[in-house]
């Protein structure tokens, strides 16, 4: 897996100085910008995602977080855990795991090393569970505190 940062070409909207970079995730460029460095000593550099970005599958995201952030699961482990789920839930969950994701939040605080990663997963077609539940999108958020939630 290759993670690359490249320069952006968009200067800040107001006068000031900031730092910008773009992460390449599975060959997708992810631009992250810092805030103005006015309070750099107090706050450090905090990078944030500028625009939502479609990027790989949910399993790709898990593998990236495992490799970069010591996230405790790999994509293969997620697949294995889902395989233990009984039908009729296993098939839709496997489909969900392989669905493409949109990265919606990526915050990196270089002072505290805290981070937030959030993504939305929109399976096509929507998942039907027991013909009573239709799942059109799922959000997932992972923070450096290790808490994972589905908003």
């Amino acid at each position, binding site marked *: 897996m290759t*993670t*690359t*940062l*490249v*320069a*952006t*070409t*968009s*200067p*800040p*909207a*107001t*006068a*000031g*100085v*900031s*730092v*910008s*970079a773009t*992460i390449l995730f599975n060959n997708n460029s992810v631009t992250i*910008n810092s805030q*103005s*460095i*006015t309070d*750099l*000593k107090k706050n*450090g*550099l905090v*990078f944030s995602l500028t625009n939502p970005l479609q990027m790989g599958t949910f399993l790709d995201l898990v593998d990236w977080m495992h*490799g*970069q*952030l*010591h996230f405790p699961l790999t994509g293969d482990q997620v697949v294995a855990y889902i395989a233990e789920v009984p039908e009729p839930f296993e098939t839709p969950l496997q489909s969900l795991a392989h669905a493409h994701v949109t990265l919606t939040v990526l915050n*990196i605080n*270089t*002072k505290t*090393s*805290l*981070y937030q990663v959030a993504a939305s997963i929109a399976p096509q077609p929507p998942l039907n569970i027991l013909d009573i539940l239709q799942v059109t999108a799922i959000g997932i958020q992972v923070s*450096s505190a290790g808490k994972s939630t589905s908003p």
Partner: protein
Amino acid sequence: MAIVNDLMVYLNGKFSWSLPTLPLAGFPQFVATLWNRVTTNWSQGAQVPAVVKIAVDSSNPLIIPMGGGTVEAVAASILVQTGSSHSP
């Protein structure tokens, strides 16, 4: 050859800003590392472009701390906007 710190010193002098400069005591280590990086499209005395590129590549990566791990930066830039009277 100039480093990011030279850029900050230059901007402070030109615009009367108060951007942090080395030695950056009490600042996060990442900031000090970044301030020592070489700029590739700006040198001292030259006009400052809106995007000042920093010499970072795969053989000379910039390591960004992120949680318990890191993200490797192989390129990065400083964005400079000088179009208003607002001081950073």
